[in-house]
């Protein structure tokens, strides 16, 4: 498990954290969606490498789901929604970018300190993975906190879930039941999100219509 295999796994997990950071400073929704697609792509690569390294073929399924579903379908669908809603304008960040990045660095440091200390007895690959996974989870949380737009909150939530998938694949031999359930939960979550976005749009429409009616009433 040492040598090149370890280095590649390490690099992929590390790049996931890097892409999480890149998501933090995107100020346009469409760019954010691109970054999320990249995030999911790196996750897929990382999971596939784990599948190879651990000789666990069922992990390829997880990788495939991440690739097809999260890296392609969801970003495309969200892009359509965003364009339809006409909100591909700038995202309002609650904090400035600089502060968000600083907080992000703090969170990564925190997760390294916590995870590397408590897992001293565990397999080195699992250790690194877990530490990176916690960083990704915390960065996802940070993104959800710093964004107000519903779509970017959803993106934050999904990158958080990517972190969880990374953690689950890092834990050696974690049963398939859970992996499927994770994928399944993402699916359900997305259906729910879809319904919500649909309904929110429905609401926006009615609000618009009412506003128009009121406007007309005043004119008359």
């Amino acid at each position, binding site marked *: 498990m040492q040598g090149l295999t370890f280095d590649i796994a390490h690099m992929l997990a590390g790049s996931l954290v890097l892409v999480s950071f890149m998501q933090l400073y995107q100020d346009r929704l469409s760019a954010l969606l691109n970054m999320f697609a990249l995030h999911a792509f790196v996750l897929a690569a990382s999971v596939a490498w784990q599948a190879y390294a651990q000789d666990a073929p069922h992990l390829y399924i997880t990788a495939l789901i991440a690739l097809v579903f999260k890296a392609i379908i969801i970003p495309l669908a969200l892009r359509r929604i965003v364009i339809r809603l006409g909100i591909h304008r700038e995202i309002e960040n609650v904090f400035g970018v600089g502060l968000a990045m600083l907080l992000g660095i703090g969170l990564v440091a925190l997760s390294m300190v916590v995870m590397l200390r408590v*897992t001293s007895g565990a397999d080195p690959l699992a250790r690194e993975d877990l530490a990176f996974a916690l960083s990704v989870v915390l960065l996802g949380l940070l993104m959800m906190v710093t964004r107000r737009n519903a779509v970017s909150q959803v993106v934050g939530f999904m990158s958080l879930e990517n972190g969880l998938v990374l953690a689950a694949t890092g834990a050696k031999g974690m049963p398939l039941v859970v992996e499927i359930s994770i994928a399944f939960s993402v699916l359900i979550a997305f259906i729910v999100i879809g*319904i919500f976005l649909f309904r929110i749009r429905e609401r926006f429409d009615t609000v618009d219509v009412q506003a128009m009616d009121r406007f007309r009433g005043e004119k008359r």
Partner: protein
Amino acid sequence: MTIDALSGVLLIPALSAGLLAALPGYRLTSRLNVLAAFLTFATAVSLFIVEPTSGRYLLVDDLNKVFIVLTTFVAFTTSAFSASYIGHEIEIGRLKLGHVRFYHAMYQVLMFAMNLALVANNIGLMWVAIELATLTTVLMVGIYRTHEALEAAWKYFILGSIGIALALFGTILVYMAAQPVIGEGPDAMVWTILMTRAAQFDPDLLNVAFVFLLLGYGTKVGLAPLHAWLPDAHAEGPTPISAVLSGLLLNVALYALLRFKMLLALNPASIAPGPLMVTMGLISAVFAAFMLYRRRDIKRMFAYSSIEHMGIIVFAFGMGGPLANFAGLLHMTMHSLTKSAIFFAVGHIAQVKGTQKIADISGLTVTHPVLGWGLVLGVVAIAGLPPMGIFMSEFLVVSSTFARAPFLVVILVIAILVALGGLFIKLNTIAFGEPRGSTAPVEASYVPMFAHLAIVFAAGIYMPPALVTGFQNVARLLG
């Protein structure tokens, strides 16, 4: 999987969810919903008569039997309340027939998910079940599609998902701790196996795992400062769902927390989970008690009261020991019954007055004597006045922990008294103020509400010895 009472509490709701999704209309389906809930309850009671053996996937012991029976009972009475509630919502056109079909199917899916969380013998499966329960309630909270309802559902969805995500991270960490001892594969996630080998797990990993689990499932329990979703979700959803959320779903999340607490207790080198739970419980109780004073919405007010009581319950379980656990268990049961009874009353009140604003509901004992006095009884019970059951359980919580942590208990008692004041100030206008609003007669079934209150009253006067020994066994199990 063999067909026995254990799989029965899962199969009945699952099958009826499919059936209810297919049937049109609401008169028949709302009755079928009651019937299905009753059958599930009957099956759950049969667990006490013939105890099925635990398998690899499903588990039954003294602890979850209590939870299952309580859950299915309140689900049954709530379905009876829901039948009359939904009838009224259809009449005034707030819900359409299609929504009702969806609502009934979701009600049964929620029952399925909660029962699955309670009987699952696998930490992963339990997590999936709680996630499913969360998603169904999100959909139900948003069912009115008003702006407020969607916002509440969205908030609940986001916060619930974060909670659930943290809980999953904790679950993965528990697996990581178990894997070197038990070996790779599904065995390292099975409760019964985890419990036998817990002493050999890596304590540091378990500690970190518990922090995540406490934050994750604690969000679902509604512990401050992770409670922000709870008042909104209670206030904007249909009232039967408020009753189920307060009475049951919070308990189910608590159950998950208790199981992990038991796991940690078996590992001598790990931290004691008690102080963490005591702290969060105390903060929730104090915070929610003070928040009661500023509430303008009646459902929101009782949602804060739920946070307060969950705080007291978590405090009791956190203190631990047979007596405090007994008190916590009793308090949980009494709170479930009382709070759902209150929501039954509030549901009818909101329907007949056409508003949830406390300022617009006044003088209920004059305009609607039965509802008004029912609410008064419920509030008397929830505030912890004798002779109702909650007085008993709160008294036990206080007396069983006073010797060990007098300062903490003083804080708890202050919280209880502050909450009592807050509830009664509001109750005074609601029940005895100048009569205001609609005086139209209410078409309500009072049976579920008074049945709950009667049980709570009876428990305050006399507890059957069989119940006491049953609860004592569970309390000992909880350690």
